[in-house]
């Protein structure tokens, strides 16, 4: 299989055998132009706004105690959420792929619900469930950091599952049988054979979940109660700053959030490439 891939890669390019959209120059120009318009321009605008008052004002905005607290909460709760997602997402993907049980298809489609639901509705649902006057009315969830983590868990549920599932489906079951015939017990097979092959997918799912957690707003704004220094995350802080007319400060914190997300994606990319170097 990969032998064929190698052969293809080594074969000289044969112009005219591949569909081109008006030559490489035009295609590349279109792609770069579109990406610039949709991604680079807004990012540049935010960066420019954040620096309108100079570097000093930027630093003041970012290092304001309330901003720092919000950033800290955002990053820490995102990391917790990612860790939980890695474990449960992989477990759920495993069950969905390897186990047969009645209602499996229903459960499988349930996984996408957090994607389908507008996040503000998700927040409303969580509040209705866990709020003090809610159906379950559990103390210590709404308006607490636990609530923040719960909301983030809800909206990021599909990421790891959906990235691990196809890899697990494609995973060569004979590798596991070969390991078993060599004397490996199920736990060893999972640790030494299955997990290393799933790792790139788990990491990719985790990266998406992290990026989503860092930027999440809709589901948090209701359940967290937005108590400064307590349950206020960065996105809500930014919103608050805009509402009170501090656009520069909002932009400054945005840039930091952006930097964290981009840094994380970069790291993951690096890690993924290292892991994939010898894959398949």
């Amino acid at each position, binding site marked *: 299989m990969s032998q064929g891939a190698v052969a293809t890669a080594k074969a000289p390019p044969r112009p005219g055998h591949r569909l081109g959209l008006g030559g490489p120059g035009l295609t590349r120009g279109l792609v770069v132009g579109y990406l610039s318009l949709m991604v680079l321009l807004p990012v540049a605008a935010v960066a420019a706004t954040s620096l309108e008052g100079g570097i000093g004002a930027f630093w003041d905005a970012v290092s304001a105690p309330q901003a720092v607290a919000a950033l800290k909460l955002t990053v820490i709760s995102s990391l917790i959420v990612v860790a939980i997602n890695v474990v449960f997402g992989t477990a759920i993907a495993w069950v969905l792929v390897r186990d047969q049980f009645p209602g499996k298809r229903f459960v499988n489609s349930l996984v996408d619900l957090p994607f389908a639901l507008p996040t503000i509705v998700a927040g409303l649902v969580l509040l209705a469930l866990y709020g003090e006057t809610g159906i379950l009315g559990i103390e210590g969830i709404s308006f607490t950091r636990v609530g923040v983590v719960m909301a983030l868990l809800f909206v990021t549920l599909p990421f790891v599952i959906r990235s691990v599932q196809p890899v697990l489906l494609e995973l060569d079951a004979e590798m596991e049988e*070969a390991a078993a015939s060599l004397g490996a*017990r199920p736990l060893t097979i999972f640790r030494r054979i299955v997990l290393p092959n799933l790792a790139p997918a788990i990491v990719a799912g985790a990266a998406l979940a992290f990026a989503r957690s860092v930027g999440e707003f809709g589901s948090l704004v209701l359940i967290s109660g937005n108590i400064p220094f307590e349950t206020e995350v960065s996105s809500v802080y930014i919103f608050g700053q805009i509402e009170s007319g501090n656009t520069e400060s909002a932009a400054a914190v945005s840039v930091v959030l952006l930097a964290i997300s981009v840094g994380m994606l970069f790291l993951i990319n690096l890690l993924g490439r290292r892991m994939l170097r010898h894959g398949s």
Partner: protein
Amino acid sequence: MSIKVENARKQFGDFVALDDVSLEVRDGSLTALLGPSGSGKSTLLRVIAGLEAPDAGRVLISGEDMTQVPVQNRNVGFCFQHYAAFKHMTVRDNVAFGLQIRKRPKEEIAERVHELLELVQLEGWVDRYPSQLSGGQRQRMALARALAVEPKVLLLDEPFGALDARVRMELRQWLRRLHDEVHVTTIFVTHDQEEAMDVAEQIVVMNEGAVEQAGRPTDLYDHPATEFVMSFVGTANRIGSLLVRPHDVQLAHVPSSTSEEAMIDRIVRLGFEVRVEMTLGDGNPLIAQLTRSQVDELELADGQIVYVLPSRARVFDENGSEPRTEELALA
């Protein structure tokens, strides 16, 4: 170690993969399980390995009942058609895997891996990943990996099935030599009768979940027990109720009391051997295998009408699966 399977049965849903199969394999022998796809040969191999549990019956390895023993404890080496290489590990780690599981000391593992890679001629590839190897190299690595744990038996499931013809040929001969060197009881599954004849000391022909016949390659060819074996091991023509090997077909230009009329469709010259493709009076195809000089002597040509007389033929009774057969020497 000898292998014995007693009355194994295995069903997948409605499909009976193994229907009361019994089998005996001598210690140190090289046996082929030969059959078309769906004949149950792979299932039988997996049952012996412990990768599949039989619904009924027993598996004995050197006299010991292994039916309830999990695959991890059977100490069998197993190779798959698609190699099942651990693609995230180097060749070294692949081969070392079984020994690491057994917690052998590092020096011993290194030594053994070196030995095995020499045996399978992959010494220069220790630090490569499976994706950097060719199919044939991957299968040799898989063999080294299986042999590393000094298995009591070596089980190969269509080991050369995914390789191209030339590599397949090389690996066949290589497997033969390897078996002479290592002497581990080996069973391999194949659907290629030529491969089975070439490599194995014993062939077990399977069809529809049952053993049709087991024996030495020449015995199967010369004394097939059933019509299926006759047509699956080598080729066979049907002339009326007779089954005739292509090389037992004699051609003549004059009819005799027992000969059949046939028309030559095509003469294929394959060097020394010439294949004459014909159509019988009843519309059935017929293939004769002649030598070049025979064809020249008869001055055969496309479109000619010739008279066919089998020199040896077999008759099987109606359902073709009863072991009562007759051999006729006609000429």
